[in-house]
């Protein structure tokens, strides 16, 4: 027999084996439980943690659409710039590096230090909209934790001349004013994103999921003609400076289609300079400000009277003795005259004449022509903040209001609205819909007066610019011009200010078949002259002459001019309509 290992013959207690076994089983159970915990319960969390080691979500910025003029010339372009941001916890910079960085960012070292001292934040903008060359030098510093983010900044090559119309965007490239705001949805793109896998060197090696492509912003083509816009702004600015006016505005319309070819305001601002901008300069006065039009409204009264068959173009009106009493208020003419034809009433801008015609006309008829011509309702140009002016309901008119309305007091309009209303005379009595966007086909106008009336009034408006008219300075060499001056006292509170005027002129050319319509408004000229025929008409003439040449419109008149100097100075001014209480 072989010797037996004594250890084998030892009899151990069974309980000991059981304890060991159960401990082993318990150990396995714990392992399984932990595995379950990680694999099933914490799965999502851990997966995400793991992914974040190599996967990155990249934002794909979308480009904001361009705003162009009618010929495709850019008026607003977005171009990429770099914004510098830091993740303070990750920044490892030596003091020397930090000083260099501060210099590049054009900020003080202390300021930079403060911004980088908050390790709780993961994202701090250090500077936005950096020039690409500065950004490139910054990258060369190679400081960890400092990164660039591509953003877009808006540039306006046309600068101040189209500033009011285009508006501007904020630092995040969202439209804040003007066209930028009105067509925000169309212009703005939608940023996309893609999840990618990056290798150790930070190179993208694979798309981890399907890419959400960014939706690029779309372009907007305006009806504006950049050349005309420049011309209009230049002339307006010169006139405003010459007459030391507080403000001014000009609108150039295509008389046929109602498209706005130019729209400028002074004072202006440079939209490329974000820091210096004040609200008064940023207002688009031609669309958002109201004024009392004065005599420029007279043609509509005459048109209403012609439509009602109350008068004919050759009818006469007695305007002697140069004033008219309505109730206890008095309406005056600057140059009292005797018997005038209807045409002469317009030519000399007689308040008495036009008031007499208006009073003979039922209120409702005067109101309906003015209302149909677009007064009192917004012109629906699509421009944010446009106003409709005030045209009171005819049922509440007192006789004096009925009379003053006929020459443009007690009614308020915007310049764009006034210009649009004149399309009634430029065409065949139809009011054209207005648009700031390039239009493929002319829109359908709405008839306001008959073609015959429109032609008759246009002929009267031509005499305004002719010898003995109030706007000899509105003449354009080689073209027949039709238009009307306006000079109105400004309302201050509820009374008319004696020495503050709004001078205006609205006209069209060539009068035989109008192509262009220009409306000029100069607010508070302060250099002695204030008559529309002296202040606003020359702006009209200069803009119209060059615009017709640019558009190569064939002349329709011999190349001679009437000498200015003895024009009538009438005025719609005259709110000598003071009511004696």
């Amino acid at each position: 027999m072989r010797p037996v290992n004594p250890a084998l013959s030892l009899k151990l207690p069974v309980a000991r084996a059981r304890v060991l076994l159960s401990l082993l089983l318990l150990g396995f159970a714990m392992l399984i439980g932990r595995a379950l915990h990680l694999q099933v319960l914490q799965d999502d969390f851990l997966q995400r943690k793991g992914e974040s080691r190599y996967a990155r979500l990249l934002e794909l910025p979308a480009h904001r659409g361009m705003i162009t003029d009618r010929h495709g010339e850019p008026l607003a372009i977005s171009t990429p710039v770099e914004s510098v941001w830091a993740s303070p916890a990750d920044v490892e910079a030596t003091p020397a590096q930090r000083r260099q960085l501060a210099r590049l960012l054009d900020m003080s070292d202390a300021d930079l230090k403060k911004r980088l001292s908050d390790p709780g934040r993961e994202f701090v903008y250090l500077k936005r909209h950096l020039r690409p060359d500065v950004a490139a030098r910054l990258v060369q510093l190679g400081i960890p934790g400092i990164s660039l983010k591509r953003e877009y900044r808006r540039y306006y090559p046309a600068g101040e001349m189209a500033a009011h119309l285009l508006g501007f965007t904020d630092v995040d490239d969202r439209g804040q004013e003007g066209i930028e705001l009105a067509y925000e949805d169309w212009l703005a793109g939608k940023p996309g994103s893609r999840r990618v896998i990056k290798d150790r060197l930070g190179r993208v090696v694979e798309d981890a999921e399907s890419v959400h492509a960014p939706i690029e912003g779309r372009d907007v083509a305006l009806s504006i003609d950049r050349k005309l816009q420049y011309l209009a702004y230049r002339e307006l600015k010169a006139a405003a400076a010459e007459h030391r006016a507080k403000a001014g505005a000009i609108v150039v319309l295509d008389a046929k289609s109602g498209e706005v070819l130019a729209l400028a305001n002074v004072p202006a601002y440079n939209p490329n300079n974000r820091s210096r901008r004040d609200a008064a300069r940023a207002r688009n006065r031609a669309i958002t400000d109201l004024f009392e039009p004065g005599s420029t409204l007279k043609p509509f009264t005459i048109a209403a009277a012609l439509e009602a068959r109350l008068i004919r173009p050759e009818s006469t009106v007695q305007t002697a003795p140069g004033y008219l009493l309505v109730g206890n208020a008095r309406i005056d003419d600057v140059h009292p005259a005797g018997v005038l034809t209807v045409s002469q009433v317009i030519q000399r801008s007689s308040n008495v004449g036009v008031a007499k015609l208006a009073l003979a006309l039922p209120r409702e008829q005067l109101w309906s022509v003015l209302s149909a011509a677009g007064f009192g309702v917004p012109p629906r140009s699509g421009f944010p903040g446009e106003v409709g002016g005030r045209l009171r309901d005819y049922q509440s008119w007192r006789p004096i209001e009925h009379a003053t309305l006929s020459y443009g007091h007690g009614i308020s309009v915007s310049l764009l609205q006034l210009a649009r209303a004149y399309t009634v005379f430029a065409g065949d009595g139809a009011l054209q819909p207005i648009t700031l966007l390039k239009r493929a086909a002319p829109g359908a106008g709405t008839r306001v007066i008959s073609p015959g009336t429109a032609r008759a009034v246009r002929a009267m408006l031509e005499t305004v610019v002719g010898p003995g008219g109030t706007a000899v300075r509105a003449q354009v060499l080689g073209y027949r011009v039709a238009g009307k001056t306006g000079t109105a006292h400004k309302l201050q509170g509820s009374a008319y200010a004696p020495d503050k005027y709004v001078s205006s002129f609205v006209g069209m050319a060539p009068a035989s078949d109008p192509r262009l319509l220009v409306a000029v408004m100069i607010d508070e000229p302060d250099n002695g002259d204030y008559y529309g025929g002296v202040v606003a008409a020359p702006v009209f003439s200069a803009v119209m002459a060059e615009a017709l040449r640019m558009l190569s419109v064939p002349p329709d008149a011999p190349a001679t001019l009437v000498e200015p100097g003895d024009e009538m100075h009438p005025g719609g001014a005259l709110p000598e309509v003071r009511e004696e209480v």
Partner: protein
Amino acid sequence: MIRINLVLLCLLVICALALVTSQHRARKLFTELEKEQDIAKQIDVEWGQLQLEQSTWAMHSRVEQIARGTLHMRVPPSERVRLVPAPKRSAP
């Protein structure tokens, strides 16, 4: 039986290596594609900047200034302008 298994093992190893290589090549190509796309984007950006530059140089105020100031150009007076009737275009 063992022989088949050995052959299959070899095949498996070859396939595995091929997979690794092709994955690597795919990633390399992808990086290259990325690079090219970056260049395309860069060129796009440059185009925008050039457009901006062009329209800044072509500003009417600047053109006018040069035309009037440097080149002494002016609009001809009306007596020196002759109008020529537009030739009638033959119907297309």
